[in-house]
């Protein structure tokens, strides 16, 4: 039985769209969704999601994407713990646990639900068996000894690849964990940049691995914050070895490099930063198409053009309408056959700019080819303090292999979209 029935797409007003069609909208019981993952079992498509402001995880049956149904919600550790991130592969669900508001000042952390009177939190990564898709069974818990983990990578098999704050470190580092015995997850190796260990002098700018550490063959692609985009050779998983590092200097928010996704067949990668401050107070954020034909010398070929409102819009500048405006997430396939591959069409969430679609056939001249921007949310969900002004804030994205696009926002539930533009191939 569905926990919550599908809602009318009328709940979501379309403000601007080109080559993108609204398929469905579901508020998920007024719990905005964040990181999403998908598995197909017996012909049914299950979307697993963490939540932006709420504890726990939700499973949405999206077999019929025009009628998504919430089929399960369950709670995670509650005290001072974020449960934002999920990944599913090989019948296993990996959920991140992280201290709420690690990087925020205490007043802001309190708005996210941090209770300073209880100086504890849960941290690490939980490993669940989801072969019975609606009955997650906890198999094990990897502890970091630090603040926990953020965006992790798992594509099945023996190893999960974490962006983890281990004991003794100032920020998140890369940790490979063997989960062949999921009840006893075991660290295989770790890799950090200079200045992350608490027993060494801090660097002027603290770097932190945002993740996921995206693994392609024997390489790990690390979005390493202020340390830029890092490529490691992990052919020996016990000894990760640096192949190359691409600095983005003072571009981007305090976050630095947020995503580093390889497009292996094209010997390319996509590098993104994430807008952090509202009203464009960050140093300019960017998304770059990278040439990795020589993996030891990564080189930016182009930067995606900044979105400009169309004539349909009631405003002339996204940057001036409030909230954050800048890149955040791209779709990451995690080598799952139920997820879309990244071809010549790049989908990017852009906070107040909604969803932006780029034709990247010519990596030197990427062009915007479509977009979807909803109207302003009609209410604040839970207790968010952001955006200060209530405008769309598109956060995360996942695309299934049927072409249906799932999007999360700070004040909207699950939005399902579909690209209707020309076939770009690839």
């Amino acid at each position: 039985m569905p926990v919550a029935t599908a809602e009318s797409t009328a709940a979501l007003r379309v403000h601007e769209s080109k080559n993108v069609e609204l398929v469905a909208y579901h508020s998920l019981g007024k719990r905005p969704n964040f990181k999403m993952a998908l598995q197909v079992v017996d012909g049914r498509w299950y979307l697993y999601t963490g939540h932006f402001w709420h504890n726990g995880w939700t499973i949405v049956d999206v077999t019929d994407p025009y009628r998504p149904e919430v089929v399960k919600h369950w709670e995670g550790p509650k005290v001072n713990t974020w449960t934002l991130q999920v990944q599913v592969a090989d019948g296993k669900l990996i959920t991140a646990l992280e201290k709420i508001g690690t990087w925020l000042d205490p007043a802001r952390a309190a708005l996210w639900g941090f209770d300073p009177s209880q100086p504890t939190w849960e941290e690490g990564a939980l490993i669940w068996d989801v072969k019975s898709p609606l009955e997650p069974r906890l198999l094990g818990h990897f502890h970091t000894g630090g603040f926990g983990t953020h965006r992790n990578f798992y594509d099945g098999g023996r190893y999960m690849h974490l962006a983890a704050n281990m004991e003794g470190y100032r920020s998140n580092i890369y940790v490979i964990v063997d989960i062949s015995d999921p009840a006893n997850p075991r660290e295989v190796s770790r890799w950090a940049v200079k200045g992350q260990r608490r027993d060494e002098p801090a660097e002027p700018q603290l770097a932190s691995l945002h993740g996921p550490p995206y693994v392609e063959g024997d390489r790990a692609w690390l979005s390493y914050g202020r340390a830029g985009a890092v490529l490691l050779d992990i052919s020996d998983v016990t000894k990760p070895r640096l192949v190359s590092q691409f600095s983005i200097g003072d571009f981007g928010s305090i976050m630095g490099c947020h995503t580093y996704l390889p497009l292996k067949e094209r010997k390319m990668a996509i590098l993104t930063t994430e807008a952090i401050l509202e009203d464009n107070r960050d140093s300019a954020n960017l998304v770059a198409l990278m040439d990795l034909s020589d993996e030891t010398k990564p080189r930016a070929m182009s930067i995606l053009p900044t979105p400009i409102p169309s004539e349909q819009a009631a405003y002339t500048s996204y940057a001036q309408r409030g909230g954050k405006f800048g890149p955040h997430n791209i779709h990451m396939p995690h080598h799952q056959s139920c997820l879309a591959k990244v071809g010549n069409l790049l989908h990017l969430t852009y906070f107040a700019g909604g969803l932006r679609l780029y034709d990247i056939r010519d990596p030197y001249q990427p062009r915007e080819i479509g977009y979807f921007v909803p109207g302003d949310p009609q209410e604040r969900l839970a207790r968010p303090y952001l955006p200060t002004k209530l405008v769309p804030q598109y956060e995360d994205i996942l695309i299934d292999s049927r072409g249906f696009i799932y999007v999360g926002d700070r004040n909207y539930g699950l939005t399902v979209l579909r690209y209707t533009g020309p076939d770009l191939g690839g």
Partner: protein
Amino acid sequence: MEAAADTVPVITLTGFLGSGKSTLLNAVLGSNAMPPVAVIVNELGEIPIDHALIENVSEGIAVLPSGCVCCAVRSDLEYTLRELYLKRVRRAIPDFRAVVLETTGLADPGPVLQTLFSRPVRELRYTAGIVLTTVDCTHAADTLSAYPEAMRQIAVADRLVLTKSDLSSPHELRATGDWIDTLNPAAPRIVTTKGNAALDELFGRGFPDALHTESAEMDRWFTTAEPRSSHANTIRAYSYSIPSPLEWERVHAALKDLLASHGEHILRAKGLLQIVGIDQPVVLQAVHHTLYPPDLLSGWAEHPRESRLVVIVDGIEREIVDRAVAAC
């Protein structure tokens, strides 16, 4: 690239007017061994199904007692396949394991294949399955002389179903065989009377599961008999065997160039390729100007691994295709 999971093959059943498509379809749907399939026809009334046996018809979709689903093409093929997909996942119709698409007798199969290989259709978990072409042995020679569509239907077929053989004279049978030797010597020929044919022969062993997974099955495409030019037509099938593994970048570039320059003359190309760095066989398909995203098969058959490529053309010289293959 990875092997497609959970996909539904779409089999194209083509053949000229009166060549026995509907008779074959009806016989197949009546077989106890037939797994549940969805059948797409141009008009529901065209298919001579006993209407008393149809359990219900709603929104143009009929459900047969066997659990098979029949519908007519609505709006266009892509729309129809999307509707079938959504009705299936909504459980409004019984599940189906394959789709059989019956084309009109005058259809050029090229555009149909282009739709089946297109991104929107592949995204809905459909894969292009085999092309079955019915050939009426009593009229083949006359029809083929007069209608280029009929020649193309035979040229692009993966299998040929020879119908009405019991009604044909030895001369007619020989004439039909001659035409097929010219147009498509490689495709297996299945002789039927009144639509009776074993499902294994028509669709392959293990249908529908094995359709895209067995390289032994794929091998049937590539018997290397060269066409005999006993008829004045411009359709030719050129086949190639390449023993050493190929570089994907070179194959891709060479075939793209060939299709860009001569696509209007290329009815179909299909390849089973051994690519450096990839353990499994890579399946390539092209129709006219478009090379479609490759698929992976689960593994090689027993025989020595080698790449096979068949290019079916209308009106270009062998040397042009030879040069493209040499550049792979």
